[in-house]
Every structure is written in structure tokens, then in C-alpha cells.
């Protein structure tokens, strides 16, 4: 029966090619092989987000009057609603974490070097989209914290020279953060970003498949080096790790379920302890230290411009690190990477402390 079925499909779509491709696909083994898993973990968490996101959509109502109430309904009335929402929140956090680990491992292993510049660039776009997912999703419960975090976040966009003001009005759907902002963010979160993400993720994955796994500089490239077949050896390990991540998610969601907080009120003062999601904390904390005026500029404008430039340089690393592309060691990349990791860690902790 299965043979017949396979023959039927094979006649229409040549599956033999795929089989041969899978049989030939190998994962190189070396001291950094463990980092290969984080791309897969990110992918798994994205799938979790799509599924739990669709489940939340069944009850969520994206309007100023109903958003907070609908989440309260999900948390208190819908069976296992608290679980679905908590998994969605936790998976979002772990997703960003996994993406960051994936990015830094690629950075330190110089896996962005020629010919994988496009894989790196698409990966960076996926990271920005992941942050966009986080920022837009944060507002959807329409609680006090989210309301003020969004006010601050969109106002930061607004201080950019020239494009800032129109960009802020576009994001907010007006001059202020209102129900119009919620509608827009809801649209970005459930339609625009998932669509873009899926397309760019496909390109990213196709590039990885076409080019094979990157191997560290100076690593043995002889054909008889140590490798592991992708199918089934590596895939099974991947799946086992996914199962472990799913269990971690379940434990976190059960022990630390998401909170809802107080409903947003435009006529209440900003509450104490307001802070963005942890992955924006290092930028938030840096802005706190900038004085009101630096030379002729507002401190925050300078801060944002500096972050913009740093982000751009980071994104363009395959193009300024020519040495790694030539196969030579480049210690500067390590220094830059270490500086960025330490900076993010220190400022995140500082922002986290009360």
C-alpha cells in the first residue's frame, strides 16, 4: 500500500530527489556543533507561537473597550485559557532568547562569512521582526504597563530626524496612543509580521539547505572529516530538544502564569516600575543615562542614532570583516562581539534592578 502510494506521488512529484538530498545532508561535528541546535529551537518556538496565537485569536478582541476584558475572559473563563496565554507569553520570551543565542553563535563562529552573507542578513531581518512581534504583542492586553511602554516606544521612534514624526503617527494611528494604535498593532502582530516572517524565514532556510552548514574557520574540510547524517540522527536529536523545550515551556507557564495588570487609562499617571520587555531593557537603561542635552541635540535623539548606527554596523559585519571571508583569523570580531554581549548583559541587569 505504502509502496503504491509512494509510487503515485513519485510519478507526480519526484520524491526521489528529496530522499537523495536528505541522505546526502550531513552535519559537521566539531567543538561548536551544539550551537547548530539553536536555529532549530527558534523555529520550533515560532511554530508554538503560530499555534497558540491562532488559539488566542478565537477569543481575543482587538479594541480599546474589549481587549483587556477579553484577555480577562481568556484567563478566567475559557478552559485552559490561562495556559494558552501563558505559553504564548513564555514562548515569545524564549523565542527572542533562542534567536539571540543563535545570532551570537553565528557571529562568534563567523558563520556569516562569504558565501553566507545573505543568510546572515535575512536572519537579522527575522530578528527585527521578532522584536516587532514582541513590541506589538506587548500592547494587545491593553494594560497600564503596555500602554505606557508603547507611548515611550513610539515616542522614541518620533524623535528621529525627518521621518520620526510621520513614522510615529503611522504607528500610533494618530497623534496619541489610543484604540487606533491597538487596532494597528493587532494587525501588524497577527497579519503583517507573520506574513513577512514566513516569507523571509523560507528564504533563510532555503539558503541554509542550499549552502549546507557553515563550519568554523580553520576546521578540517576534508571529505572524510567527522560528520553526522542529518536524517535521522541529527533530526532525532533536534526533536528531542524540541520536546525538552516544550516541557520547559509548560513548567514556566504553570509556575509563572502571565499577569494581566490594571486596564490602561490615559488619564492615570504612569505607574512605578514601568519597563519594557527584557530584550529592550539595555536600550531603555542606556537612554536613562543620557543627559537631556548633548551639544546641540536632545540626549535621546543621540542615543537612538547611536543604537541605529551600532545596529547597522552589526548587520553589515560580513561586509566589513573581510578577513574571515578570506579564511584568516580576525580577533577584532571577538572583541566587538564580547563588548556587545557584556554591554547587553550589564545594562539589562541594571535595568532589571529596582
Amino acid at each position: 500500500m505504502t509502496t503504491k502510494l509512494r509510487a503515485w506521488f513519485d510519478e507526480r512529484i519526484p520524491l526521489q530527489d528529496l530522499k537523495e538530498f536528505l541522505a546526502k545532508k550531513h552535519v559537521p561535528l566539531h567543538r561548536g556543533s551544539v550551537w547548530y541546535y539553536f536555529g532549530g529551537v527558534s523555529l520550533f518556538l515560532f511554530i508554538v507561537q503560530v499555534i497558540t496565537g491562532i488559539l488566542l485569536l478565537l477569543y481575543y478582541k482587538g479594541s480599546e473597550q474589549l481587549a483587556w476584558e477579553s484577555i480577562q475572559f481568556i484567563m478566567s473563563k475559557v478552559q485552559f485559557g490561562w495556559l494558552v496565554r501563558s505559553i504564548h507569553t513564555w514562548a515569545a520570551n524564549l523565542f527572542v532568547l533562542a534567536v539571540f543565542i543563535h545570532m551570537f553563535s553565528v557571529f562568534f563562529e563567523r558563520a556569516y562569512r562569504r558565501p553566507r552573507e545573505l543568510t546572515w542578513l535575512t536572519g537579522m531581518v527575522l530578528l527585527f521582526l521578532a522584536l516587532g512581534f514582541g513590541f506589538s504583542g506587548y500592547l494587545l492586553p491593553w494594560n497600564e504597563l503596555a500602554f505606557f511602554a508603547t507611548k515611550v516606544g513610539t515616542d522614541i521612534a518620533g524623535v528621529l530626524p525627518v521621518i520620526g514624526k510621520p513614522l510615529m503617527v503611522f504607528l500610533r494611528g494618530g497623534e496619541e496612543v489610543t484604540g487606533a494604535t491597538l487596532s494597528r498593532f493587532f494587525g501588524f502582530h497577527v497579519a503583517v509580521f507573520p506574513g513577512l516572517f514566513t516569507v523571509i524565514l523560507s528564504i533563510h532556510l532555503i539558503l541554509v539547505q542550499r549552502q549546507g552548514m557553515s563550519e568554523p574557520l580553520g576546521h578540517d574540510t576534508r571529505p572524510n572529516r567527522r560528520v553526522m547524517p542529518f536524517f535521522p540522527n541529527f533530526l532525532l536529536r533536534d526533536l528531542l530538544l524540541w520536546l525538552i523545550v516544550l516541557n520547559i515551556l509548560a513548567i514556566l507557564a504553570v509556575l509563572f502564569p502571565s499577569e494581566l495588570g490594571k486596564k490602561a487609562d490615559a488619564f492615570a499617571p504612569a505607574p512605578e516600575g514601568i519597563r519594557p520587555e527584557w530584550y529592550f531593557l539595555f536600550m531603555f537603561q542606556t537612554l536613562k543615562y543620557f543627559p537631556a542635552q548633548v551639544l546641540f541635540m536632545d540626549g535621546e535623539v543621540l542615543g537612538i542614532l547611536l543604537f541605529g548606527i551600532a545596529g547597522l554596523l552589526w548587520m553589515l559585519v560580513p561586509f566589513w570583516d573581510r578577513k574571515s571571508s578570506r579564511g584568516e583569523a580576525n580577533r577584532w570580531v571577538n572583541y566587538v562581539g564580547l563588548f556587545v554581549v557584556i554591554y547587553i548583559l550589564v545594562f539589562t541587569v541594571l535595568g532589571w534592578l529596582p
Partner: protein
Amino acid sequence: MIRKKKSQVFNAEGVSLTLGSDATATDGGKRDFLKIVLGGGLVAWIATLMYPLFSYLNPPRQTEVEVSSVKVGPLNDIPRDSGMIVRFGNKPVLLVRTADDQLRAFSAVCTHLDCTVQYKSDLGMIWCACHNGRYDLNGRNVSGPPPRPLEVYRVVMQGDDVHITAAA
């Protein structure tokens, strides 16, 4: 084969004089004309698509009722050494009754990043929780990141009632 190539070269260069043929001159003219019409048409077509799209993305201006004054309520309802947020049209205004019994009103929108400020009685200051910005009781930015003082509103007493009006 060679002849064909030759004629192509002529055509491509549009050297009508060498050939002395009117037909080729018209050909070149026709081609330029078509380029302009098609190219221009394409640009116009893209513009026709983009104009409504970008106009749609830009949110319409809501007509707001101009508010020049709001009544807060009787003075006795406002404790000393406290602050409250008052709706001024669609803007929040902070009304402060100071410890030495003065009434002051300011825009409650922090000049730093748009958060809503509050009166902190323990500091005797106006404070923004988002980035620890501080203003004195004249609305001047005294510490933290705020770049400008808070906008001042006037407080007017009418009998026992407190009113806030926009500063002229």
C-alpha cells in the same frame, strides 16, 4: 547573417544620416517616443497605486472640540499636598495643591518620552515614573532626562470651585 547584423548596428546607433533613410529616423523617434510614453505611463501607474495606499495609511485628523477651560470641582475635595490628573479635552493635566496651599496646573505629559507625570508628596516634586524625570513645582525640569519644562496651565477660582484654563 552579416547584413542582418549590419542593419542592427545601424538601428541601434540610430545613425540615419549614414543610411540617408527617413524611415530609420522615424524609427529612432518612434522608439524614444514609446520609451517616454511607456516609462511615463509606468511611473504614473505606480503613482496612482501608491497615492491612495499612502493616503490610506495616514490616519485622518479627528476634529477635536477645542477646550479652553474645565471645572475640576470644589477646593475642599482636593487634599493639601496632593496632585490629581484632570481631563482637559483629550489631554491630561496635573493639578497640584501644594503643602503651603497653592494651586498649580501643568500639562501632565512628560517632555521626555510622553509618559504621564504625577505629584510625589515625599519629594515635593512632580515626578515621571518612566525614566525618573523630575520637575519642581513651577514645572521646571530639574533632574533626569526631561529636556523642557512642563507646559503651564492657569488655575482660576470661581467661588469655591477650581477651574483650569489654558494659559493665554
